[in-house]
């Protein structure tokens, strides 16, 4: 084997991404019903690599892993043959692609897309879909999924095995649906990617690395959809643009102590410009059809924030306009809450109050502290500090997340200072 003397470090997450690729390719060859065997076989390949690369990393680590996976596939193939359990793929004869062609880049991408669509199959419990996607497409271990989604290891284990069982039970085909089915399934695929992204972007319980990885995976997968001419539509492009805009300010959102930084106080020079550029050019493509989805409006809102050099320059009127559009096609109490906040920023507390009257705190579920936090801001704006304080107390009595609690406490203390 060729060894590199002055070796560059291996690409971050090479193993993880390679895992996702290999699972997809092998599922295409042997069928989804062999998923578990396939995952074990790939795990073996990595164990082998991690021992044999100790003294030096091969010139082309990716190619090394691919070859090892291919060989392992052939082993599997023999094993299955001897069990007289030929896969459908093998039986389909003339229409099959040559084995080695499956390892070409575009075929690998195709296999991975099949896996994404499989993870979002309606027969899978929506709660299982994300865990399954993280495992089979993104190459996260059970433990890593548990840490990323903030569930117990046991819960993730159950979800994964439930997903596998449903796949077997349904005898699911490993394919990208077509026509109307593609449209329907794509909606769910985008939803799952959106959830995955938000899991990284919004939860403050996780450390920065986990957050970046979740956002990064969601973006990587979304990019694969964008790059596929038959799958990509304007909604997919808008979601990708939205992810770019949000990620651009991921670093500035949280301080060194994992506490939320108010948008007002964020260091705007930390925003990552190349992602803003990528988001903008994707947004141009996304708006060409003239049909707008909720992702379009969310992206528009995010980009308005990015356009302001300083917080004071924020075009709140424009943001409110986008929120109204969003609310019209996808009504949610959270939109109303945001619209109220925007009106408070515009020094129009009476408009904020009117919007807040349309929100019932119980509609917000576990996040009803946001309602009380917003009401507190309203009372602060009209200088009714006593009411503001009591709203903050109510918010603090329901908030669960530590950094959000700290954030609210800070705000509450400020009110108390104003009262003295």
């Amino acid at each position, binding site marked *: 084997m060729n060894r590199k003397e002055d070796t560059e470090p291996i690409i971050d997450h090479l193993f993880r991404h390679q895992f996702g690729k290999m699972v997809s390719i092998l599922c295409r060859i042997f069928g989804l019903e062999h998923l578990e065997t396939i995952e074990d076989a790939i795990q073996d390949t990595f164990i082998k690599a991690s*021992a044999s690369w100790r*003294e030096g990393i091969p010139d082309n680590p990716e190619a090394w892993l691919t070859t090892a996976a291919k060989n392992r596939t052939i082993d599997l193939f023999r094993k299955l043959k001897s069990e007289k359990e030929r896969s459908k793929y093998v039986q389909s004869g003339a229409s099959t692609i040559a084995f080695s062609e499956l390892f070409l880049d575009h075929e690998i991408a195709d296999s991975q897309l099949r896996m994404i669509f499989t993870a979002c199959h309606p027969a899978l419990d929506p709660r299982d879909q994300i865990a399954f996607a993280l495992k089979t497409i993104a190459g996260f*271990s059970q433990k890593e999924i548990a840490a990323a989604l903030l569930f117990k290891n046991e819960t993730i284990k159950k979800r994964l095995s439930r997903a596998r069982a449903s796949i077997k039970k349904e005898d699911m085909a490993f394919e990208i649906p077509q026509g109307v089915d593609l449209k329907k399934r794509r909606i769910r695929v985008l939803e799952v990617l959106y959830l995955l992204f938000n899991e990284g972007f919004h939860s403050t319980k996780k450390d920065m690395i986990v957050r970046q990885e979740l956002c990064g995976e969601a973006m990587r997968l979304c990019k694969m959809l964008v790059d596929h001419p038959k799958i990509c539509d304007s909604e997919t492009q808008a979601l990708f643009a939205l992810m770019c805009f949000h990620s651009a300010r991921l670093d500035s959102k949280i301080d060194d102590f994992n506490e939320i930084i108010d948008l007002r106080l964020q260091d705007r020079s930390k925003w990552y410009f190349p992602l803003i550029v990528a988001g903008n050019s994707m947004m141009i493509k996304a708006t060409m059809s003239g049909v707008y989805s909720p992702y379009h409006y969310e992206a528009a809102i995010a980009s308005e924030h990015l356009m302001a050099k300083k917080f004071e320059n924020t075009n709140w009127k424009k943001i409110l306009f986008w929120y109204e559009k969003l609310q019209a096609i996808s009504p949610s109490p959270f939109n109303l809450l945001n619209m109220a906040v925007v009106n408070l920023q515009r020094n129009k507390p009476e408009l904020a109050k009117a919007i807040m009257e349309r929100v019932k705190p119980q509609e917000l579920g576990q996040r009803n502290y946001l309602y009380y936090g917003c009401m507190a801001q309203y009372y602060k704006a009209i200088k009714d500090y006593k009411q503001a304080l009591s709203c903050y107390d109510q918010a603090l009595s329901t908030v669960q997340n530590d950094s959000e609690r700290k954030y609210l406490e800070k705000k509450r203390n400020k009110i108390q200072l104003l009262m003295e």
Partner: protein
Amino acid sequence: MKKFMLIFLGADYQKEGLSPDEMQARMGKWFAWNQKMQEAGVVVDGHALESETVRQVSGPDRTVTDRAGSEIKELVGGYYIVKAEDLDGAMKIAEDFPDYDLGGTVEIRQVMVFEQ
């Protein structure tokens, strides 16, 4: 300079359920350790050993036992032969062994030299 063999025991990556990312990180540590030793010019030889095929031959009848699939803990996973001033020097080298946290052990043995 004396020669020492560092023998690695234990640390079963499979059993630990390491994720692809974790395995990559671990490999990076092995690699860094090897680099460090190479730069210091102390490595004489070293290899990782296969554990898929392990065969033991023992006794006057040359009884063959297939030990593939045995507990990794009982198997030698690899070795290095390094040059060091004394046992303490070899121990210093072994400090960077990456798998202590997974229950791995390094056995340090001086290579015997026969007086001519």
